[in-house]
């Protein structure tokens, strides 16, 4: 509460003071005075005085935000060379002088401040009670490049960038339809971060769009720096370990999801776009699943699902079986485990825990370090933990194999946020396995399963279409049927306009007597 009050008081100081609510005065000096006070110590804000004809004027912009070449060419130069004194009106300036495509006007001072901070350029002219705002955005930003977190062998190579408008354009490139709607919202008192909410009209349920808007409007915060902020504010179960909103760097993934009636939220300043509602199975699909031969992706999707099971339960099962249910291990395997464990001083649970923690630490070290050092960490880990620890008799070889398998299993999940929650869950299961044996593992797994079945993402059951079961949607869940068999959109979201494509699109040679058949 205290913090909130503080936030409010500081807000009052900056924006809602009486001065900024004022309208623009005819006297340029007054305006500039107020503005200069507001932008005090903001060395990047440029106040460029100029005289157009014999009228004083000021150009305001943030250095580095704008394309200075464009301002010079289409604003500054034109204004300075303007000699017809009498005709300096706002309309004249926008229509005849400033040759920039996006121009608007305002009469409020706080609009001036906002627009300057939004990388627009503002022209204040003495004697005018209006400010002219024109868009000459520029400056150095990262260009469109290949998404690094979701690489694919086949598929588009472009990924989202940090610039909102570029991102919306990337999606618009995929869906060139007037039904693709892009709503805009500003969130964050200080950051004024622009959000774009994308949906396809007629596919996304209108009540879902409204729900998303209302959840986004709830957010009162000083700053939004990444889409993760939004995600945590609008998800359904805040305490759940499982991500209920998908994020992606790929425009094609966003486009595909929009066409299935989902909603995307693009946040300015991050390439990670939110897709909602999300189901559990969505996190085991990659965009490439739909691009290459479907046979292999039927296999790969089943493989991913089974490896998720391994990633969650294998350490638990291993610890449980070796400490409580030795009769379940095949005799020769048991003897070799016994042989390799002969010199190990720790109980099985402790041994597995040490290795799991070492593995997680190694992974974390590898991610955060610069790439060149990261390689060194990899070698160190492989040598020290993989080999030396076994030879020194601190851990046994079967345990190392088990940990490695679990690690690989967690890497098969295509979505990073699902992968980390799965990785976390194996610790409680391992503890349960160490305490109660297989009984504990099964119980823990059931709790996880119950939780998954209970979760909802924006009204959609998280485990859909397995629970509740929807046979129609199963064709694109654990397997992926060929495109010519996917005639309908998933029926949980899209209620009308479910037909995606024409019937009987499966290629086949023309039947005898049909047009085009060889005679």
């Amino acid at each position: 509460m205290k913090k909130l009050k503080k936030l409010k008081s500081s807000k009052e100081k900056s924006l809602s003071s009486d001065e900024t609510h004022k309208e623009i005065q005819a006297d340029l000096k007054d305006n500039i005075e107020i503005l200069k006070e507001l932008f005090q110590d903001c060395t990047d804000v440029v106040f460029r005085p100029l005289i157009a004809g014999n009228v004083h004027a000021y150009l305001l912009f943030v250095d580095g935000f704008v394309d200075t070449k464009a301002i010079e060419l289409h604003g500054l130069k034109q204004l300075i060379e303007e000699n017809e004194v009498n005709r300096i009106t706002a309309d004249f300036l926008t229509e005849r002088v400033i040759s920039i495509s996006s121009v608007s006007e305002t009469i409020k001072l706080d609009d001036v401040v906002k627009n300057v901070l939004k990388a627009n350029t503002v022209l204040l002219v003495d004697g005018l009670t209006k400010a002219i705002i024109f868009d000459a955005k520029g400056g150095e930003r990262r260009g469109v490049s290949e998404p690094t977190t979701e690489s694919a062998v086949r598929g588009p190579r472009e990924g989202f960038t940090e610039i909102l408008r570029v991102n919306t354009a990337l999606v618009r490139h995929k869906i060139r339809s007037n039904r693709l709607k892009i709503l805009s919202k500003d969130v964050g008192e200080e950051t004024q971060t622009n959000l774009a909410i994308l949906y396809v009209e007629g596919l996304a349920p209108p009540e879902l769009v409204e729900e998303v808007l209302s959840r986004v409007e709830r957010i009162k915060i000083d700053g939004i720096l990444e889409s993760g902020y939004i995600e945590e504010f609008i998800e359904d179960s805040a305490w759940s370990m499982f991500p209920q909103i998908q994020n992606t760097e790929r425009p094609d993934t966003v486009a595909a999801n929009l066409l299935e009636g989902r909603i995307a939220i693009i946040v300015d300043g991050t390439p990670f776009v939110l897709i909602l509602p999300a189901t559990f199975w969505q996190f085991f699909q990659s965009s490439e699943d739909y691009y290459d031969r479907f046979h292999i992706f039927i296999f790969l999707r089943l493989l991913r699902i089974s490896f998720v099971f391994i990633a969650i339960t294998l350490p638990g099962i291993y610890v449980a079986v070796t400490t409580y249910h030795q009769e379940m291990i095949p005799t020769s395997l048991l003897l070799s485990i016994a042989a390799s464990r002969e010199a190990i001083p720790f109980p099985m649970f402790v041994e597995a825990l040490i290795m799991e923690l070492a593995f997680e630490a190694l992974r974390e070290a590898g991610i955060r370090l610069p790439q060149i050092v990261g390689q060194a960490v990899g070698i160190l880990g492989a040598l020290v933990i993989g080999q030396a620890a076994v030879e020194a008799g601190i851990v046994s070889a079967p345990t190392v194999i088990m940990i490695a398998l679990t690690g690989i299993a967690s890497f098969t999940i295509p979505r990073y946020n699902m992968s980390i929650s799965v990785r976390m869950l194996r610790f409680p299961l391992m503890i349960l396995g160490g305490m109660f044996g297989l009984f504990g593992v099964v119980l823990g797994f059931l709790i996880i399963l119950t939780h998954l079945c209970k979760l909802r993402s924006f009204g959609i059951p998280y485990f859909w279409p397995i629970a509740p079961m929807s046979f129609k949607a199963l064709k694109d869940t654990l397997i992926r049927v060929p495109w010519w068999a996917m005639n309908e959109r998933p029926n949980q979201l899209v209620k009308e306009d479910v037909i995606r494509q024409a019937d009987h699109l499966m290629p086949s040679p023309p039947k005898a007597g049909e047009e085009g058949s060889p005679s």
Partner: protein
Amino acid sequence: MKKARILLLILFLLIPLTGCWDRTEINDLAFVVGTGVDKGPKQQYRFSVQVPLPSSLGGTGSSGGGGGTSGEGPFLIATGTGRNIREGVEDIQARLSRKLYFAHRRVLVIGEDQAKEGIREILNAVFTQPQSRLSTFLIVSKGEAVKMLKAQPRMELSSAEAMREMAKAGANLTVMDVLQNLDRQGKSLIIPMVEPTGTLKKERDGKEVLMGRFAVFKADKLSFFTSKRESHGILWLLERMKKKSYSFSVSKNKEMTVHINENSVHPNLKIVNGNPEFAVSVRVTGHLVENEANLRIEDPATYNKIIENMEEKIKNDIHSILKRAHTQGIDIYGFGWFLFKRHHQKWEHEWKQNWKSMLPHLKVTVKVDADIQRTTNTGNVERN
């Protein structure tokens, strides 16, 4: 909040059920892979176990393998005596630092002397304890059982493993089958028999194990060991000759060997004057693996002659075991069990009581239908 409390309660309820205090580390257990039961002095049992020693199995980090050269294999043999099996186990346990764990027992070997006394009590005692598996193989040894456990076949880690593999490839009768047959009317027990052997003369007394013959039981007591020929008869009747080689003579000192691919037995019942008569039809196919006499098997006349020899020999094998068993009142194939199933009323009222006395006079005809297929892949193309 309420839900969380209920969940917490459920979790706490778990604790009294089981817990880490029941934990047993792998290196606190002695995995028994084979056990033997012998007749001890004064109506006692001599119980022996075979336990592999993990430290000499050569896992990484341990002191390394070896140990085989000093005469003792990488396993431990311990024997204990007691008035019952459990006492024998406790006798051994008192001398071991690790807890005996029977869930991985591969074979249970019963010594010849003990088998003659009866095996029902042993089986009951051994297999009522929860760690026991019914998929364990039951074996009767010629001589003492502990001798078989002490054998060190070079192929496998331990003799128990070797005996298990051999029993599996042979008659494949597990303890479960034996226990079932033990309680079946009109069917007697057949259990594979092992004997010590060796390649060198000084090793003859127990370096390797040999399993090829059978122990035939009357009720739960050992009656006799079969001869080699009778063993073949048993394998034919059990339909277990598949994937085995079978030799028969075709002319003087010349044999032909066939690899059996198919072996099926169908008993047909005929009741003549109220007495059952059986016609057993045996179907055998195989492919030629050795043709010592170098006969032209493609020739129909030769082929028929060869087949005749083969059928005759199979028939003799079967007859020899049937005759020996039936004269002793042992129903080795389970004709009685067949009657129990097919003519239950008559079995209950007429035949059951004096089945043993009826057996020696039971008329059994054996009809063998053999074929040799794939005759050309002998590798020998030279023809006369």
